[in-house]
């Protein structure tokens, strides 16, 4: 009997507003502990919250970009629980009337496009950070307390780790394109809780779910989902029952551990925060926000496919990151062979950007020069890769790099013929293999040629020369 998993995701996105959600403190990441705090975000007696309007605008943009309905009279509620990182012992969040609800996001799966339902988008304040000392004590850094977050809750519409990853990547890109968050996962600006249950394929009924908290990389999400799915299936197959509980993913051990069960779950005692007024969004304001939304991944995908004739999967890849999409778009205007450009970006630049979350080191103009050289067969792919890898460490242009490092391909037939002769003489066994009909033996000759020329020999010309000599 095969199982499928049912996944819903709760994503917390830290907004990049200059000041915190309820006070004027800055939101800069990585400052010395407790240097970005005031009576309001420390929850001191008598201090009152005043909502930062920019937070509402950002959440409104997110809601609209995710095709949500917008609440015209939103409310903010108190979520009550005791923990030292929460200075008021309640978090100001939204329960009944979130900023946005009932939307969807389209993702690309192996079976084609799929819509993932968005349950709600609401605003809330982040908590501080506990720092456990080696000596045994615990210190609290409240700098992060009061940093604005939006929480985006999906419907349980995903069925695999791959779909969850695709959703998260698309969601992250959308937030980046909106310009409302740095989305830096290593700084906790984009983090994810996974709700997961399993059921037998064909079953309509949902299984008991567990929740895994605070997964801050795509790789962890994938691993955590695969591991949790396996765990749940094993429990069920062994005749056991899944307990509704919150689990913590330990990336070092590659396993999740139970944190608290349903019985220990908090009763958050939500109620409207009397210190804050309703969030009123008029139809005009919503319409204005909608009209002024920036270009989103879906818009880029359309233009990449329609104007540049890229394949869907390539277009999807290029919009995973805002920097990449913009880089592609600008460079594409300068080159004729868009597909080569796209392939080079996806194959060579994407990984670095995803891993380091840093900006691209190559300019659009230089990239265009490189793509043109490649498209016109003036260099080959391995040389192009080599040049790309050198760019971050130099200020020289693409042309200068190729000149300085003598990377131009060797296309001179006489030079290559002379080298081919030497190779054939040194490899009599390969010659007889080839003559015996093993055409693959040709590869050995070319490989040897590349070694001799540091990859600069033009493989097409070489192949013709070898065939002629040995043939």
């Amino acid at each position, binding site marked *: 009997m095969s199982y499928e998993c049912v996944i819903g995701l709760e994503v917390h996105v830290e907004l990049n507003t200059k000041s915190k959600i309820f006070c004027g403190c800055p939101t800069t990441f990585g400052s010395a502990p407790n240097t970005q705090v005031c*009576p309001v975000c420390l929850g001191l007696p008598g*201090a009152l919250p005043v909502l930062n309007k920019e937070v509402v605008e950002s959440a409104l943009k997110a809601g609209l970009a995710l095709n949500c309905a917008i609440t015209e009279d939103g409310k903010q509620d108190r979520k009550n629980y*005791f923990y030292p990182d929460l200075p008021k012992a309640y978090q100001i969040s939204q329960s009944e009337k979130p900023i946005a609800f009932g939307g969807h996001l389209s993702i690309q799966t192996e079976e084609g496009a799929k819509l993932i339902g968005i349950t709600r988008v609401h605003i809330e304040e982040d908590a501080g950070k506990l720092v456990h000392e080696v000596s045994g004590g615990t210190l609290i850094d409240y700098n992060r307390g009061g940093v604005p977050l939006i929480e985006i809750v999906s419907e349980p519409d995903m069925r695999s780790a791959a779909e969850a990853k695709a959703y998260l990547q698309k969601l992250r890109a959308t937030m980046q394109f909106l310009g409302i968050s740095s989305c830096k996962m290593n700084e906790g600006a984009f983090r994810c809780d996974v709700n997961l249950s399993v059921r037998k394929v064909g079953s309509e009924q949902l299984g008991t779910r567990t929740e895994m908290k605070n997964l801050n990389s795509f790789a962890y999400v994938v691993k955590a989902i695969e591991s949790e799915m396996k765990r749940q299936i094993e429990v069920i197959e062994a005749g056991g029952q899944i307990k509704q509980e919150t689990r913590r993913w330990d990336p070092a051990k590659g396993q999740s551990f139970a944190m608290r069960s349903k019985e220990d779950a908090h009763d958050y*005692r939500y*109620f409207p925060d009397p210190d*804050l007024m309703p969030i009123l969004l008029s139809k005009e304001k919503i319409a204005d926000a909608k009209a002024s939304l920036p270009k989103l991944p879906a818009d880029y995908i359309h233009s990449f496919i329609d104007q540049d004739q890229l394949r869907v999967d390539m277009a999807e890849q290029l919009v995973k990151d805002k920097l990449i999409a913009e880089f592609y778009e600008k460079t594409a205007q300068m080159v004729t062979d868009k597909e080569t450009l796209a392939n080079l970006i996806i194959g060579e630049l994407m990984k670095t950007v995803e891993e380091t979350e840093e900006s691209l080191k190559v300019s659009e103009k230089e990239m265009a020069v490189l793509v043109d050289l490649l498209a016109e067969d003036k260099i080959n792919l391995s040389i192009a890769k080599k040049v790309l890898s050198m760019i971050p460490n130099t200020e020289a242009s693409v042309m200068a790099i190729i000149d300085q490092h003598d990377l131009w391909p060797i296309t001179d037939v006489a030079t290559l013929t002379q080298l081919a002769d030497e190779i054939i003489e040194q490899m009599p066994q390969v010659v007889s293999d080839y003559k015996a009909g093993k055409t693959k033996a040709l590869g050995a000759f070319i490989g040897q040629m590349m070694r001799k020329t540091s990859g600069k020999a033009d493989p097409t010309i070489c192949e013709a020369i070898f065939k002629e000599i040995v043939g």
Partner: protein
Amino acid sequence: MKSIVYETITKQAALLRSGEMTSEALTLAYLEEIERQEKEIDAFLYIDKEGALKKAREVDAKLSRGESCHPLAGIPMAIKDNICTTDMPTTCASKMLEGYRSPFDAGVVNCLREVDAVILGKLNMDEFAMGASTENSYFKKTKNPVDLERVPGGSSGGSAAAVAAHMAAYTLGSDTGGSIRQPASFCGIVGLKPTYGRLSRNGLIAFASSLDQIGPMGKTVSDVAMVYKALAKHDEKDSTSGESESFTVEQLLDKSVKGMKVALPMNFLSEGLDAGVKETVLHAAKVFESLGASIETVDFNGIDAALPAYYLLSSAEASSNLARFDGVKYGYRTETFTTLEELYKKTRGEGFGSEVKRRILLGTYALSSGYYDAYYQKALKIRTMIAKTYDALFEKYDFILSPVAPSTAYRFGEHSKNPVEMYLGDIYTVPINIAGLPAISINAGYDRQHLPVGIQLIGKAYDERTILSAANAFEASKKIWRAEQ
């Protein structure tokens, strides 16, 4: 010669301006009065003699240079101890905040500093403003200056007693369900609870955020109007802050009572109140008639639901507002603990008094899943209903005349054993907070035991002018009711 401390603010301000008296001398007069009476009254939790005299001398210097000063400049006053001040502790009369110093001044304190008020100190109250007799203070019991055997009322008991004993020209109190008006009535002074949001709540340590309102307490209606005007400023640090008062002090007091229509809810006077209170209210109605107002009796529907709704809403909000006192960051922390849970439990168990704990428990229960709809939601519905009742009345009437409390000041311990008995004393004051309306409590009579009886004038939201003017006219008539002996 009559001491200067018995004079009104207007008179004191005039003397300062004419140079007949300095603020330093005035301040010293109040400090002497405190020295003389405080041992018996116990109104203060903190006295800042040095700070007060320093400020007084500053004002004197300004006046002698001929600089223009606000009428409240150099006038000595004192503040309820749930309003944050940077130069004095703010304790809410709780062990939990013993010695706590706020790093910021409350919005109203900023206003006071702007007008160069001389701040004498901080005043006793029921712990976290929960109570009606000031017996719930962790530190001391404040006595009613009228009769030292009796409570001054509460929760702003220290604020009322300090004015009644002339230990401050005026004071600030806070009113969540009657905490300014009832002690004003018990001590025979004037107390104004402005419209919700009129005075900034920024820096008022919250009891029930949707009901709390700071207000002035003083000897006369005009004193109170003057202080109110100085503090009724919009504050961008309080999201619920309303508009600043636009009328001048003179305008606030000069609206003619002639032709005003007054509602007198007769069902407030039918049962459960002292005869002296009833007589005083009926007498006051006649006085207003004699001043040219027309009185109509009405029935105020929903009064029975107001008290339970108030205790649910205020306790629910309090349970959340007081959750931050957990021993982690400031205030009281238990001596020994091994786990986080134990730190919380012991700190809160030891740091809060029993009335505070009772309300936290009630509020937590009312907000718990499964009970929320039956209690909190229902209370919100009653809140809407009460607001509508008032709206309907104010379509027809300029203000409502009502008792402040069912009784006059009672003896210590008389009600403190039975919380429900104590809660019943709030019946006439809580509906006003539920609806966010302004109301003023002024002395209008004395019962058979010579104890002061207040009356309450309730106005439309943001119409403090009508009730201040009516109260001012009543006060000027000097028609105080006295029980036959």
